[in-house]
């Protein structure tokens, strides 16, 4: 039991370190570079397309050739994969809201968390408001808080089941 816990923590630490290193080395941590990548009609900087390309180049074959064949992870935990294929309102509206925020500041969750140690008040401000946004989203999904335009969430029970 104790070794499984240790393995989970060790793998968390190791993969977190690889992830953060990838964020810094690839340049994803630089919002100026991110905006330059999104600016396809202007002075486009295509280099960040290679970040997703590189990530998929490693993860995709590894998933389909190694992970997919397994019933469980090496720790014995189940593979935490959703089989949900419904394209619903929260997925679409969430992706749009995320896209607006990403385009406004050039930050997404991975790079800002990696940048915490830099101590920039801009990064810290973004993170505080991101945490507020996540918490509010959780309350909305549970039917407790309303959102502008759409109001309170309907069919709460249905979706809680799906997301579980």
């Amino acid at each position, binding site marked *: 039991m104790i070794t499984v816990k240790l393995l989970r923590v060790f*793998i968390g630490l190791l993969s*977190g*370190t*690889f992830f953060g290193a990838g964020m810094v080395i690839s340049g994803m941590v630089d919002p100026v570079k991110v905006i330059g990548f999104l600016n396809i009609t202007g002075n486009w900087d295509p280099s960040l397309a290679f970040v997703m390309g590189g990530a998929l180049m490693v993860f995709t074959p590894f998933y389909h050739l190694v992970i997919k064949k397994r019933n469980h992870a090496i720790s014995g935990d189940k593979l935490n994969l959703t089989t949900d294929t419904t394209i619903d309102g929260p997925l679409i509206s969430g992706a*749009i*809201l*995320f896209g607006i925020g990403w385009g406004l500041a050039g930050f997404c969750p991975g790079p800002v968390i990696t940048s915490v140690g830099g101590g920039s008040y801009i990064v810290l401000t973004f993170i505080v408001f991101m945490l507020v946004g996540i918490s509010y989203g959780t309350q909305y999904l549970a039917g407790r808080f309303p959102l502008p335009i759409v109001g309170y969430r309907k069919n709460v029970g249905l979706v809680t089941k799906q997301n579980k």
Partner: protein
Amino acid sequence: MGFTIPWQSLFGGMLLGLSAALLMLFSGKVAGISGIIGGLLSRQKHETSWRVAFVIGMILSVYVVSPLGFELPEIINNNIFLVALAGLLVGLGTRLGNGCTSGHGIVGMGRFSKRSIIATCIFMTTAIIVVLIRNLLGGL
């Protein structure tokens, strides 16, 4: 045209893919940063320690790569209100959409998940349109 492959971006991206593959193979977890952060806000049994470790690894990674000459950039953004609004939208959007650039863009796309492919197309397109509008408004 003198296009050269941006090796650092490619290599950095491969590290992200390796990270996601290791986390899923060994622990069965999805390397989705919005999900990991969100999971720390509403904690479940057995799901907290690895998330904390992952976040600590991310933050410490900066000190691992700095001897190799990779540093965090200086963040220049003089509009703190825009940053706050963006943070709010990113938090709310990733929670409703169940993922961000990593969870949908890497893990979900790599698994050929229909939801992730659609989410990634939508947030990429939206962000591109936002940057375009900002350019048209004179670099707001």
